[in-house]
Structure formats: structure tokens, C-alpha cells
């Protein structure tokens, strides 16, 4: 059924269609609308056979999900930003135990300075925790990916994060096709756990493992992700046949056939990038883009075959690996091992800074002219950065950085280029 709804509501409807049995809710912007909507559905009786638990922290949210999943219940929670970091220990634990929990990340920046707007710093911080990470490009895909995520998680007994750009997707109203409940039931069978706390067949879950077996247990986590490289496209194909639209998969190439410049990115910014690609194609530029839909596992082979014929790759990163560059570039560069081509990392959109079509076009033209650096910061205001650097050089007690920067700007930080 077509509905004009907020992204968060679309995600909540998608999750509800998956018949979760335990939902843990803890508020954090910009994810909160998702668990609010689910709470209302449970309270109204629209979502039956579901325990909805208001927990006291994100750490508890995932910990309760861990217990529920180990006891055989299909478990779901959602978080963002500081919340994801606060539950970090449980994030690793859920993956180490192989519990197929699905968690939405309403992607948001991480402080300090505190900031509620979108970037990918949160999910990137936990990229190596052993969870599968899928990035939604649109609200429709955000909904669809949750249905695929439960299927994938339970097939592998591995937790899955569905990463949805905060505000840009979570708070945007769009036309959404909400799948039919019966079709979802056919696509997603009831949860059959591979391990369960059962009085009739007692097991110990989470025992201590020493050097004699720890590496093997860890390798098996990696092995699940290798299997996911086959399962993710297979599930996406099956979804497409069942529901009549393409959602998810490993990578999504756009106009790359003869492209000399290919732009790589995660999530919603791919929409803007494709607009710019179209505009530049009209003007005769050989440019295309590649959306990475699955960041963990990273589709090295698929990225390579999409990128290998290009002259240059521009990676747009909504996350900064401080002191190095960007985490997406690391994967892209690895996929291109042995191939000589220019690779540019562009840090963009941190803390909700708008990534505009104009800025992207200027950037891509610069790349074509071979004027782009290895590491770039899109629309960085060098004037205020340099002012602060000078201030710190001149005065020992230069004061709080964020406050100084805001003073330099002269207004509340609401300016969008």
C-alpha cells in the first residue's frame, strides 16, 4: 500500500511486518520516532505477540535484546550516535555470540562537540564489531532493508545494522510502498534459533575461551560475513521478485560503463551524487557513481569490477578517520589492489553540513582536472580554521575550541552554504 509517511514510520512499519517478539526502546535523536511508532503499534494491539521494553540506557537496550535473542525471540532495537557508543561492548558481544539481532542506526555525528545531525561517525566506529552493516539510500530502501536484514541475520545467525541517515531519511516524508503482511510472512519465516536457552536441552552460552580456540571463534565470525557476500545479493534478488522492486544488494553502480571518474559513497548522499552525474553526463563528462550498499561485509570483488576501468575514484566519506582519512576509502583502495589509478578521499557532510550538488560538481570537475588532493574536506571554512590555529599558537590559554569557532562565525551555527 502506498503511503506518504516519515522515514522513521516507514522503518517502524517494516520492522512491525517482520513480527519482532522483543523490542527495546531508548530515546536518542534522530532514531526516536522509530521506537515511538513501534511502541504505539504494540500498545494499540496492532503488533501482537511482542514485548516492548522501555529500558534505562542503550547499553541495556542491546543487552535486553541479547538475552531475548538467546532465549529464542526475534529481537530488535534502534539507536544512534552516542547511544551506539554507549552500547559498544554489547555490540561486540552480540556478534561474538552470534545472535541475529537487527538494529537500526539513525546515523548521527559523535561529540564532542555535541551535534545531533547526520554523518556516519557512529556506525563507522563500530564497523569492525562483527555486525553486517547495510546502508539505505532512500526511505523505501530503509523499509525494505529491514525485512531483508531479519532474513539475513537469521540465516547466518549474525546481527545486522541497518544504517539510515539521520534526519535526511529518518525525518523526511516520502511516498512509500508498504509491503503486504502476507508477502512478508512468506519471505521471512519464523525465527528458528541455532542456539537457545532451553530447560529441556541446557547449554552454556558465552563461556570463557582462551588462546586455544579464540582465533577459531573469531575466524568463524569472518566466515559468516564471507557467506553474507553471497547471501545479500541472493536475498535482494528474491526480494525483488517478491515485491517488484530492487532494494539492497552489495553495490549499486550508476552510469559507470565508460566512466573515467567514479564517485563512491554510502547512504542517502548517493541521490545527490546521481543528480550531479546526470547533469555532468548531459554536459559530456564521463562520470558515474557506485553506491556501496553493504559496508560489512565489504564487497571487494564487486567494487573492483565496477571501478577497475576508471581513471580515478572519488570517495565521499561522511566519517573522518582522524589522523588518516576515511574508512570507506580504505575498503575501496583495498579492492583496487595492484591497479594504478588516482584515488581521492573527500570528507563531507560532517555533523549535518549540507552536501550540495554545486559543491559536488565543483569537486568532480576539479578531480577531472587532476587538481584534487589525496585527502579533501568539502566546504571546509579554512578562514575560521586558520584563525583558531593562529589563536592556539599565540595564546596558551586559547579556550574551548568549539566556542571560539562559533564566535568566529558570529552567528548560531545555522548557516548552510
Amino acid at each position: 500500500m502506498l503511503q506518504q509517511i516519515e522515514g522513521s514510520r516507514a522503518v517502524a512499519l517494516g520492522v512491525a511486518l517482520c513480527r519482532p517478539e522483543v523490542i527495546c526502546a531508548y530515546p536518542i535523536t534522530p532514531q526516536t520516532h522509530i521506537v515511538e511508532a513501534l511502541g504505539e503499534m504494540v500498545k494499540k494491539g496492532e503488533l501482537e505477540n511482542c514485548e516492548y521494553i522501555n529500558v534505562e540506557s542503550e547499553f541495556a537496550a542491546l543487552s535486553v535484546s541479547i538475552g531475548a535473542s538467546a532465549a529464542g525471540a526475534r529481537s530488535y532495537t534502534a539507536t544512534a550516535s552516542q547511544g551506539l557508543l554507549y552500547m559498544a561492548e554489547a555490540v561486540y558481544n552480540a556478534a561474538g555470540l552470534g545472535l541475529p539481532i537487527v538494529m537500526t542506526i539513525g546515523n548521527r555525528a559523535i561529540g564532542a562537540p555535541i551535534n545531533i545531525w547526520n554523518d556516519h561517525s557512529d556506525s563507522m566506529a563500530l564497523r569492525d564489531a562483527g555486525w553486517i552493516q547495510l546502508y539505505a539510500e532512500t526511505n523505501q530502501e530503509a523499509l525494505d532493508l529491514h525485512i531483508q536484514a531479519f532474513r539475513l541475520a537469521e540465516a547466518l545467525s549474525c546481527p545486522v545494522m541497518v544504517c539510515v541517515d539521520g534526519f535526511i531519511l529518518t525525518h523526511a516524508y516520502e511516498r512509500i510502498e508498504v509491503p503486504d503482511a502476507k508477502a512478508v510472512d512468506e519471505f521471512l519465516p519464523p525465527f528458528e534459533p541455532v542456539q537457545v536457552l532451553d530447560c529441556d536441552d541446557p547449554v552454556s552460552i558465552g563461556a570463557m575461551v582462551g588462546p586455544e580456540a579464540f582465533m577459531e571463534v573469531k575466524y568463524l565470525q569472518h566466515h559468516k560475513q564471507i557467506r553474507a557476500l553471497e547471501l545479500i545479493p541472493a536475498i535482494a534478488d528474491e526480494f525483488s521478485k517478491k515485491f517488484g522492486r530492487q532494494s539492497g544488494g552489495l553495490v549499486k553502480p550508476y552510469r559507470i560503463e565508460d566512466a573515467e571518474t567514479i564517485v563512491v559513497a554510502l547512504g542517502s548522499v548517493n541521490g545527490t551524487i546521481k543528480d550531479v552525474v546526470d547533469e555532468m553526463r548531459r554536459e559530456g563528462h564521463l562520470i558515474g557513481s557506485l553506491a556501496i550498499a553493504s559496508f560489512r561485509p565489504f564487497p571487494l570483488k564487486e567494487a573492483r569490477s565496477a571501478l577497475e576501468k576508471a581513471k580515478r575514484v572519488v570517495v565521499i566519506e561522511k566519517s573522518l578517520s582522524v589522523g588518516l582519512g576515511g574508512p570507506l576509502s580504505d575498503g575501496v583502495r583495498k579492492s583496487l589492489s595492484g591497479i594504478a589509478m588516482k584515488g581521492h578521499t573527500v570528507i563531507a557532510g560532517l555533523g549535518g553540513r549540507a552536501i550540495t550538488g554545486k559543491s559536488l560538481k565543483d569537486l568532480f570537475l576539479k578531480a577531472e582536472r587532476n587538481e584534487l588532493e589525496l585527502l579533501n574536506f568539502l566546504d571546509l571554512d579554512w578562514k575560521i580554521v586558520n584563525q583558531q590555529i593562529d589563536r592556539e599558537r599565540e595564546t596558551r590559554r586559547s579556550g574551548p575550541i568549539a566556542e571560539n569557532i562559533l564566535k568566529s562565525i558570529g552567528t548560531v551555527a545555522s548557516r548552510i552554504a
Partner: protein
Amino acid sequence: MSLQPVKFYQTGTFTVGNRLLDESMRAVQANMTRTNSLNSGHRACQGCGEALGARYAIDAAMRAAKNRLIAANATGCLEVFSTPYPETSWQIPWMHSVFANAASVATGIAAALKVKKKNDVRVIAQGGDGGTTDIGFACLSGMFERNDDVLYICYDNEAYMNTGVQRSSATPPGARTATTPAVGPHPGNPFGTGKNLPLIAMAHQIPYVATASIANLHDLEAKVEKAMGIRGARYIHIYVPCPLGWGSLPSDTMKVARLAVESGLFPLFEAEHGEITSRIPIRRKVPVEEYLKLQRRFAHLFGEDRTAIRMIQEIADRNIAKFGLEEK
């Protein structure tokens, strides 16, 4: 002829004698049908109070739950000594996630059981004092205030023993630990610090809170059984000496536990919905020195200046007055 009331105390030990009791009143451990839920062969130290407490508590819970019990365990000695891979001493479905979240994991298990309508299966969570009073406190408080259907058992040995005897918020004043060494003008753990978790649990108005000691195993079993007869959040705080951490003889574990109760330093009581409903009176009050002198962690208090011992005695006396522990 007037009847003389019989007291079931064995001479010298002050323990209620099983053999003098009716079969139905005997300890779970004295019964051939005990489940040995924490089975022999685990790697606890000699004289470990926690292993003993857990064995009694879980077997009693198993009997009360008709053997339909799942346990969530915090990281700590109990978790480590009972489950070095690929061995496990647990005969019940058992789960360990991380240090701080045993109460939350138990909440999740209980939620799953509820949604699957397995109402006969009961859930316990357990941890040491560090996993309960410190790092796990937020999760525990959340589980309490939601009144989740979980019995949480804290085995209190008054410090972080698994990591090598560091101070916790359950470490008593004056005690030497690796992080409150017996040096300087105020050796050991500072006075005026720490928290009383049973009282904090009571402040959540949960259906049942109790303290218990391995020095009174009959009482411990009875409290576990009572707790298992109630739905909602329940808390039992069990006092378990640690010979390694306390510097006491393994053969003195029961004696040390008993002296903690008889000195008034560890009051035994029950509370329902925030109100104390019963306490175990002290039958033979002992000065705190008797308790302290068996433990090297307090050895530095026995110098020329006995101020610290007097202050500990004052704590014990206040407990006795506050909880009404004088035998009437």
C-alpha cells in the same frame, strides 16, 4: 509437666542440624533429588564462599522452579571458574554476556519467555558485588524499577576478586585491597564510603529483598524459595567470604561468615515492597575484633591505634540497633 522448647543447634557450630528436622524441612542440599546445578569439577579456590553460595542458591531455586530455570551471569569469578571452554559446570541453561549487563540479559530472557508463553520457566541473574553494586548497577536498577520477573542474586565478597582484589563499593571501611593498600595515615578503604545495595533495592519498592549468608544455609535456601514463589523483581544479597582476597584460611570460610552475622556487620533480613518484614536476631553477639582478626585484610587495624576497630564496632552496633538484631 511443661514442654521444653527444642533448639535445633548443633553444639559448637550454631548450625541447624538437618538430622533433627523433619524430612520436609531439611536442606535442599541434604536431599538426594538436589540438581547439582553448579556441578563439581569447577575451578573455584579452596574455601570459596561464592561457589558454596551459588550451589545452594541455584539448587534451591531449581527445586522451587521445578527444574525450569535459566540463569544470566555477570562476568566475574563465578563465570570464570565455572565455564572455562570447553568445560562448563552448569547443568542448567546458562548465559554470560558482559560484566555490567546480567540484569538486562535476564530481563530479555524473561521477555522472550513471556512472549513465547513459557510461564513455567523462571529466570535468575547473578553476579559478584562489583558486577552488581558498581558496573552493573544501572542495569540492575532498571530491572528493579520495571519490576521485571527476575530474581537477581548478588554474591558479595566485598571486592573485585577475579581481577586480583581491588576495592568495590561493597568493600568495608578499613579493608585492605590492591587499590586501597594498608599504607599511609589512613590505611585501607576509607570510612564513610560505600553503598548498601539491599537498602537501595528496597527503595525501588520491589516485591522482595533479602540478605543471606552461607553461615546460615537453611535461611539462604528458605529465602531463595520464598523469592521464587513471587513474580516480579526480586533481590537476594548473599554474603560470601573469599579466602584469597580476605587473607583468611579456607577452612575458616564458614566461621568468618558466621562472625560477620554475629558481630552485626552483616544483618540478615527480609523486606517486601520496601518494608522490612523479618530479621534474624543475633543469638550470641561477638565483638568485631573476633571477625576482623581472622582476616589479613584487616591486620593493619591491630596496631597501637585501635580507632578504626572502634569505628567498625560502632557500625556493627548501629546495624544491630537499626535492624533490631538483639535477641529478645
